[in-house]
């Protein structure tokens, strides 16, 4: 109950932020451009809704990070955390409530963006599919929520908003760009060009929460795939990315002096 009250308050507060309105606007514009680009500029290949995933996932990762990185350290610095913890809420309620509140905001942001752009998609796509579009949006919500958790964990574990800000920038760069880039470099420079890509490489790719859904089926590996490339392991990866950062951050937050 306490957790949901904190979540509701946080949602009410965050959803009124002008910065959020600007972020939703920018995201929608980006999505509109990307949809146009994917469906009209690449006539040689058949484009489907899922081709929008990779670039949207990067944008969603950045949005999740933006929503999370200041959520707790900001309240700690301003002093509103004293107001919050003057009430019968525990520090655990605050961490979880904030996470749920901000996760709800990222869900709303992504859905608003895609709903606005859906008309655009319906017109541009050769064979628009509502199911494919909905699957795309649903899949994107996962990294959205995971990046809220990671950034929020960073925010709970730090005393200074400056450190949290730099942390957020590093997180966004690592997950949205550096991880993919490094893997691409390994693939093209170090792996033998003719041989099949080794399973461990797929696992490392998949450990990035953006690519949690890559499994034996999407890779068309048949029945020979190890357990960590089975579909259910995606759930383990996502759960790990949610629980480990939030758990560690909670332990630090629980022990620290807030004033």
């Amino acid at each position, binding site marked *: 109950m306490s957790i949901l009250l904190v979540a509701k308050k946080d949602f009410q507060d965050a959803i009124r932020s002008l910065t959020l309105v600007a972020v939703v606007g920018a995201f929608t514009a980006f999505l509109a451009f990307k949809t146009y680009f994917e469906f009209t500029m690449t006539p040689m290949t058949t484009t489907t809704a899922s081709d929008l995933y990779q670039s949207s996932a990067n944008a969603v990762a950045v949005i999740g990070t933006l929503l999370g990185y200041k959520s707790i350290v900001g309240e700690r610095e301003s002093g509103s955390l004293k*107001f919050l913890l003057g009430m019968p809420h525990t520090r655990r309620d605050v961490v979880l409530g904030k996470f749920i509140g901000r996760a709800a905001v990222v869900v709303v942001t992504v859905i608003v963006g895609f709903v606005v752009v859906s008309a655009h998609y319906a017109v541009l796509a050769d064979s628009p599919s509502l199911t494919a579009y909905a699957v795309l949006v649903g899949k994107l919500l996962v990294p959205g929520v995971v990046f809220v958790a990671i950034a929020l964990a960073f925010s709970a574990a730090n005393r200074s908003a400056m450190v949290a800000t730099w942390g957020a920038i590093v997180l966004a760069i690592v997950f949205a760009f550096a991880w993919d880039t490094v893997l691409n470099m390994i693939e093209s420079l170090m792996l033998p060009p003719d041989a099949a890509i080794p399973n461990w490489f797929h696992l490392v790719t998949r450990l990035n929460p953006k690519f949690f859904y890559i499994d034996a089926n999407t890779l068309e590996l048949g029945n020979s795939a190890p357990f960590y490339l089975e579909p259910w392991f995606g759930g383990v990866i996502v759960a790990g990315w949610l629980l480990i950062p939030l758990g560690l951050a909670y332990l630090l937050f629980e022990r620290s002096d807030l004033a």
Partner: protein
Amino acid sequence: MGAIEASGLTKQYGDVTAVAALDLVVDEGTVFGFLGPNGAGKSTVINCLLDYIRPTEGQISVLGYDAQGETLAVRKRTGVLPQGFDVYDRLTGRQHLKFIIDSNGADDDPEAIAERVGIADAIDRRAGDYSRGMTQRLMLGTALVGQPDLLILDEPSTGLDPEGAHEMREIVREESDRGATVFFSSHILGQVEAVCDEVGILQAGTLVAEDTIDGLRNAIEAETTLTVTVDRVPNAALAAVRALADISEVSATDTTVTVQCADDAKMTVLRKLETAGATVEDFELAKTSLEDLFLAYTDDETGVTSGHDQISEVLTQ
């Protein structure tokens, strides 16, 4: 059982000791004024009571609950007006009140509370547009939600004009009449004097006085500073005066003798000086007021040490 009981409370930040082995008991139903200059450690103590920070050593019980182990039970029964707090700029006064009413599972009416703290006409405005005084009133309102058994108010008159500070004291009285214990910190004696049953004075992390206002006043006002101008100060005179009853301090220059003594000992002192061979040419009497005493603590420009000595002596008599 005390509403607040701290024993051996110590808080260190590295080498800096903010609070040193503090023992404090606040009885249930009292209005306790927690006085001290800025930086004396008042907020540190309050932050420990509310588990915002963890003491380095010592035990605190609030309303019979362990302040660190049973935080939730403490928060359920305590209304808090912290120092250095902030509100949620984008939420209205009503949303703040509603949030805390829901959090406490209380059935208060947000409008009635807003009315009580004087922000009824601004209840639907965003708290970010409130003045400092209005924010303070809103926060006081949130502290009143759910009829708490204990109110902890850290410098509650911050940002309030004299009228607002007066209204705040009225609310403290009403809450006390209802049966609540009020723990009220301030660096201004006048804020506390009018409403508090008891005061504790904190200086550099140590409680240097704990008494009722009347008790402090009596202790201080019974003391007189007698300054005597004499023709000379014979060798035996000072020792003779020191030997008298009810004398706390004697000092002398070439032609003046300064004596701190009980009010009715002053004639005995003068006679003793004459007997010792000095001729009294003139004398002056000065009483120490509660305000003088407190200023000695709160005003950094006046000698804090002398104030410290003064009250230690006063209180050990």
